[in-house]
Every structure is written in structure tokens, then in C-alpha cells.
């Protein structure tokens, strides 16, 4: 049979899916081994044990200077910034997105504006944010908002426009006013797509979070990896990168699970990654 027509069993798919990760691990372990054969003090490719030890110290040994468990304080600080930033973006996306998508006058007024705003590279407004909001928490959160909200507004507005006109008309013939149509038809129809917009928005949100923390911060996951970079501490940077990836992955899966649970009607067709 042609290879394009052969199906993959569930178990084989699991094995095949794990294969690249295992291969990467082996390649790393071998490369690290040979580097350390030449120079036992090598810092660029630390051994898996060294990384494990560094991660353990960050997670369970109180910092000598502050007495904090660095991994957890960093994680909580970063997730707080990410959560508040995405929360603000989501509220903006919902209110503006529905207004733009549903009311022609608002669309004519704001759609071109939002479209141009969303094209500003967010990192270029970072100095402005620092000047306006100071070097505190607000600036870091605002960077996430500036980086994600415009795109999420556009995605939400498009989701509203994509609602079949028939459904809106049907609601009108059932006696629904504008506000009632928003809360009973438009909002429930776009919420699953809003979750998708949040999941996609989280990708740039992480970038801006780490950037903001790298530039101005005294805590957070991004602050930590840029801090220890000065000491070539790859044994901590690499586990932190993996940890950030795991967090991002878990949040993404959590949102998908939430969407599946709360908007069962949307997932009946069996779409969505």
C-alpha cells in the first residue's frame, strides 16, 4: 500500500510523537558528554544531572539573599502579569470586538483605526510605556495588553461578522432587541472563538512578558534567565526554558479543555486542535 494511505494506530502515534523529543535528548546528552570529556567545567552544555540539580535548587532551596524559593516566586510573578494582561486584553477584545462586528457605525469608525494600531510593533511603544507608566508592574502588563489586544479585537470582530446573518434575523423575528441579541446570540456564538483568540494571543503575550521582564524587572521567569545569562548559567536557563514551555502548554490545554466543557455545542463537529 502507498505510504500516504497507511493509517497510524494510536499506540504507534504515541511512540512516533515521543520520538523527536527522545532523539533530541540523546543528541544533547551525547554532545554534552563529549564536551565535558574535554573540559569538565564546561558551562555551555551542562549535564542533565547538573541541570536537574540547578532546577532543584531554584525550586526547593531558599535563595541565600532573599530567602525565597526562586522558581515559585518567579512563576507566580510572571503568571500574575500574564493573567492580568490577558484579562485586560480579553475584556477589550470582547467589548470592542462585539461593537465593531455588530454595529455598522462603530465598525466604520473604529475598524480602520484598530487595524492600523495592531500593526504597530508593540516593543516600539515600550519606552513610551516606561515614560508614561513608570518602571513598575503597570508597564510590563501594559506591554502585554498593547501586544495582544488589537489582534484579539480584530479576531473577535471577525467572529461576530462571521455569524450567519440568518441567525441575527431569526433573533429579530423572535422579538430580540439589540442588547438581547448580543447577550443571547452574539456572545454565546463568539465565546468559543474568543477562547481560540486567547490561546493564539498567549503566544505573543509570552514574548512580551519575557521581554518586559528582561528589560525592567526584579522578578519573574524572564528576569531570571536574563540575569543568570551573565554567568553563562546554562544549567538554570535550559530548565527554565523547558519550564516556561510546559507552563505555556498547560495553559493552552487548560483553555481548550475549558472550551470543550463550556461550549460543547461548538465542538460536536470534532474540529479544533
Amino acid at each position, binding site marked *: 500500500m502507498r505510504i500516504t494511505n497507511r493509517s497510524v494506530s494510536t499506540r504507534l502515534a504515541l511512540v512516533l510523537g515521543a520520538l523527536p523529543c527522545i532523539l533530541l535528548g540523546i543528541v544533547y546528552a551525547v554532545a554534552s558528554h563529549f564536551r565535558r570529556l574535554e573540559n569538565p567545567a564546561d558551562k555551555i552544555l551542562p549535564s542533565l544531572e547538573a541541570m536537574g540539580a540547578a532546577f532543584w535548587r531554584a525550586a526547593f532551596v531558599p535563595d541565600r539573599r532573599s530567602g525565597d524559593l526562586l522558581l515559585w516566586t518567579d512563576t507566580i510573578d510572571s503568571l500574575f502579569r500574564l493573567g492580568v494582561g490577558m484579562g485586560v486584553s480579553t475584556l477589550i477584545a470582547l467589548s470592542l470586538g462585539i461593537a465593531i462586528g455588530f454595529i455598522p457605525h462603530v465598525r466604520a469608525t473604529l475598524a480602520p483605526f484598530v487595524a492600523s494600531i495592531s500593526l504597530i510593533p508593540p516593543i516600539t511603544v515600550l519606552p513610551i510605556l516606561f515614560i508614561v507608566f513608570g518602571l513598575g508592574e503597570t508597564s510590563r502588563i501594559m506591554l502585554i495588553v498593547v501586544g495582544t489586544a488589537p489582534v484579539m479585537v480584530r479576531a473577535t470582530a471577525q467572529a461576530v461578522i462571521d455569524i450567519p446573518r*440568518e441567525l441575527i*434575523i431569526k433573533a429579530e423575528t*423572535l422579538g430580540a432587541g439589540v442588547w438581547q441579541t448580543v447577550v*443571547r446570540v452574539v456572545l454565546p456564538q463568539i465565546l468559543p472563538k474568543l477562547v481560540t483568540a486567547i490561546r493564539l494571543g498567549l503566544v505573543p503575550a509570552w514574548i512580551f512578558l519575557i521581554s518586559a521582564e528582561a528589560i525592567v524587572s526584579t522578578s519573574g521567569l524572564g528576569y531570571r534567565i536574563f540575569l543568570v545569562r551573565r554567568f553563562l548559567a546554562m544549567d538554570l536557563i535550559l530548565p527554565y526554558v523547558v519550564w516556561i514551555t510546559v507552563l505555556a502548554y498547560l495553559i493552552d490545554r487548560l483553555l481548550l479543555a475549558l472550551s470543550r466543557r463550556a461550549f460543547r*455545542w461548538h465542538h460536536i463537529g470534532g474540529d479544533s486542535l
Partner: protein
Amino acid sequence: MSDTVCLRVTNLFKSYGTMPVLERVNLSVEAGTFCTIVGASGCGKSTFLRMLLSQERPTRGTILLDGEPLPDEPTPDRGIVFQRYSVFPHLTVTENLILAAELDASPGLGRLFGAARKKRKEAVDNLLETIGLKAARDRYPAQLSGGMQQRLAIAQALSKKPKILLLDEPFGALDPGIRADMHTLILDLWQDRSMTIFMVTHDIQEAFKLGTRMLVFDKLRHDPHQPDAYGATITYDLPLAKDSSRSPPSAEALFPAHPVS
């Protein structure tokens, strides 16, 4: 059936840009009529229905409903069933049916809770039985067959007791067997509620079977070099005796210029 004129269309024109779609449509329909509308694709029969719904506005001419000009936007006095997207996919069967009552009772949220909601749900029990969806009451539309979805759509469209029910090729996507069931359902509902129905269909047999009056939309004038030069109008207006056993005329007789595909 009363003899009062329910709907009066006078000298209706509709064009998109410079392209006329409908021209000089004149019609007066009595209350209680089951009016079927047939015509070739693109002859403007769906446009006509959308104007009856106020989804589109006439370029010229007037439509009077019970002597009053039609409102500028869709209102509860005209129910609609589309071929697709007629029911709300995020609501279960029961929720779809009680939506109109919820909107009525709760201006702010359009939603009822607790006992009030339960009461509304119980109130649609009989209706669920009539449309054969009792067992499927808690399913979402995506879990229903096409015929079940359209039965739900019809029942939902009737929940505000509209004066006029508009049907835009409602059975076009259904299997022939299921279609026959739907015919029985719609005829029963029509007789029970003595309303006026306008139904667009591309199935002439269906138009004859269901209607008490059949309108044929077609172009009177035809320019072979410029097919879009003229709009369509009502070329045949046939009263149909409900108990007639005569066979319908052939499509060729009704559409001399371009046979129905």
C-alpha cells in the same frame, strides 16, 4: 379562511446597482393563503421573500401588511425559516423553543432562571411532541438530522404567532421521504393556526401539493445579448384547489423560455 387582504404589493421594483432583479410586481394575498413561489434560479423569488421579511428594501414600490407599510427591519409579525442556519446552534432543542418567551419575559438578559425557566420548558412539551422531538429535547442542533432541524426551525418560527410565515426553500436540502413528512407537518400547522404562508421552493411538485395559490416568477422580456437587462415579475398566478386530483402542468408549460433544471 377570511377574505381580508393580508398583504398587498404595489408596483414593486428591486435592483442591485444597475441590474434589475424584480420589476412591476403587483400582488394581493388574502389572509390564510398558502402561497408557493417558484421560478428559475436567480429569478428573484428569494429576493422577493427577503423583502417581505424586510431583510432587504424595495428600490421602488410599496408592500402593505394589513394596510400598514412594512417595518424597515425584521419584526415578530413575520416568522422565517431559512434553508440553513435557521436554529441557534448554541442552544438545545428546548432552549431554542423557549427563547422567544425568555426574550419576552426578561428585557435585560433575555434569559430566565429556576422555576420560571422550568415552567417555560414544560410549556413546550406538547409542541415537542407535535414535531416529534421529545426524545431529542436536550440535544444540540448539530446532533439532529436535517429534517429534525427544520422541524425545530418551523416550530421556533411559530413561537411568536406571526401573521405571516416565510419559508425560504425550507426542505431543499432534505431527502424525498423526509420531505413528505415535513409537508404533512407544515400543512397541519397551517390549518391549525390559520396563518398566511409564503414558501419559496424550486420543486414544482411541492409547490402544487402544498399551496392554495402558486406564483411563478420569470422574466417577461429577454435580451439574448444582455441577459441581465430586465428583471423578473410574476408571470403566472394560479389559484390551486386544495383537493384537486389533477396533475400539475409540465415545467415547460410554465417556463417557455428557459426550462427548470
